[in-house]
């Protein structure tokens, strides 16, 4: 009996050691960027590293002093919020209709839409957007983000809408509720879980997207990922400020997703990402 317990304890010890190793590999860059962002020019990136030496806020100061940072933060926020709202208004009704009249070819089309490489869409967009005056506008960036948000939202929401029993709607119609009213007041509240999931994933996709704003945003609407890229070119080997900029860029999206962790995990397990 004692031998058995000992063996089990050893098994758990091996398990947790391996677990620690896995966590370290996947989490270590985040620890590194956190510590490096607080180090002065002399210690950031020094070998051997001393992560606790002379902590300073200078790196963050130099990111904020760039001036552009706050503007880009604002731009990112505006684009993400507008995209998420527009996406729900456009995609929810469409997903509802498709769920109620499901057809195989529609699923195939949606899958196909998610396959087109972004760069091939960007080429014609650039010309079209310039011509229509959408270049370097919030509206243009929202449109570009909607291209991947709409198919993904419809794809994900189908299951949620199918779970709403038709009887519930029929009962509402009998009570004299219009179809519009039924949808807004009865069906949409029933798919709240799906809406939170799509908002969480959408926040992540739209916050993180780089290639669209890189081409379609000029000086006025530059978003944070594009700012980081530019900052990188300006501060080649200055690890401290670079780490601070990287950290500040991903902090909002990490916080937002962690708040909605459960829904995020469901969405990822379901859709397998973009």
């Amino acid at each position: 009996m004692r031998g058995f317990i000992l063996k089990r304890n050893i098994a758990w010890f091996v398990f947790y050691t391996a677990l620690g190793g896995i966590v370290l590999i996947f989490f270590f860059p985040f620890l590194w960027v956190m510590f490096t962002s607080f180090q002065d020019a002399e210690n950031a990136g020094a070998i051997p590293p001393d992560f606790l030496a002379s902590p300073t806020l200078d790196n963050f100061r130099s990111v904020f002093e760039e001036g552009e940072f706050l503007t880009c933060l604002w731009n990112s926020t505006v684009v993400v919020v507008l995209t998420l709202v527009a996406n729900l208004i456009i995609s929810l009704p469409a997903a509802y209709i498709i769920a109620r009249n499901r057809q195989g070819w529609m699923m195939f089309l949606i899958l196909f839409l998610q396959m087109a490489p972004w760069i091939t869409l960007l080429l014609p967009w650039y010309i079209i957007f310039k011509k229509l005056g959408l270049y370097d506008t919030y509206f243009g960036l929202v449109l570009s983000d909607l291209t991947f948000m709409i198919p993904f939202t419809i794809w994900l929401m189908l299951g949620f809408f199918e779970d709403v029993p038709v009887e519930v709607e029929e009962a509402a119609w009998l009570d004299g509720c219009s179809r519009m009213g039924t949808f807004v007041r009865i069906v949409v509240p029933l798919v709240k879980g799906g809406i939170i999931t799509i908002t969480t994933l959408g926040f992540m996709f739209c916050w993180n997207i780089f290639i669209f704003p890189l081409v379609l945003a000029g000086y006025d609407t530059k978003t944070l990922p594009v700012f980081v890229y530019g900052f990188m070119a300006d501060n080649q080997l200055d690890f401290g400020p670079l780490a601070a900029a990287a950290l500040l860029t991903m902090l909002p999206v990490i916080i937002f997703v962690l708040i909605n962790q459960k829904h995020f995990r469901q969405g990822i397990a379901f859709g397998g990402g973009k």
Partner: protein
Amino acid sequence: MNESSPAERLLDYVDRQVRWLFSLPAIIVMLCLFAYPLFRLIWASFTNELLSSSSKPVFIKLANFSRLFFEDDHFWRSLWITLYFAVGSTVGQLMLGMALALFLNRQFKGEATFRMMLMFPIIATPVAMSLVWSMLMNPMMGHLNYYLSWLGFGGSLWASDTATVMPSLIFVEVWHWTPMTMLVLLAGLKSLPREPFEAATVDGASKAQVFTTITLPLLQPYIFLLLLMRLVHGLKVFDKIFVISGGGPNRASESLNLMIFDQAFGATNFGYASALGVQLLFVILLISIILFKFRQRKWSY
């Protein structure tokens, strides 16, 4: 009914046409952002359109395509780089994700914390993380070589050498997405019925036998979805390569995505870039079709 106000009549109309009105906005947006641009792309691939000049583009038939197939040495090379990256990172993510999912398919203390920490790579902004990795991989100042020497390994030039740049980029991609494949496969493992496993244990099957004859076939729908999604995603990757290596050194990591970007916005050869874009679309379509056919023939129940 006759005395209904205009507003009521409007509502009535909306109700009768709800099918179309509800899907119309999505259809319009997708037509404008997908259908027309794709048409525009294909049209431009037959012209010598330039981004820099406003002169009218001339229809040059298949000249762009013959240039890309027969004259441009880098096209075939970048096609190979694109496939290498996509296949390499997909295989890495799936194998590592499967191994981790099998390892973690149990209940243990701290599971929630562990899962939360593993989500970080998926959530964090790829450009920011690419920047972090490029700092870590810096051959002179990067800490990766330092830690490796600690463990007794020699250093590497990582993304600064033509021989190691592709494995380095694949490594970052695998690091980025393995948590996701793991989460999907873990969800799959947890949803499997218990009976076949119990029966196999009673029959005295080895762990390897159980895995190949029961676990893998049962997980097949998950694996197929991941394979398709990850492969297509791998063929589209732009930001990691753009930030970490910029296609270099000596164009050794210039995938089709970067080559198109460079041709269009660097060299302003819009027509030629469009022809390259058509090729990339074609490759993705072809690979998806092959995968679907393969699934129908080999994996149907």
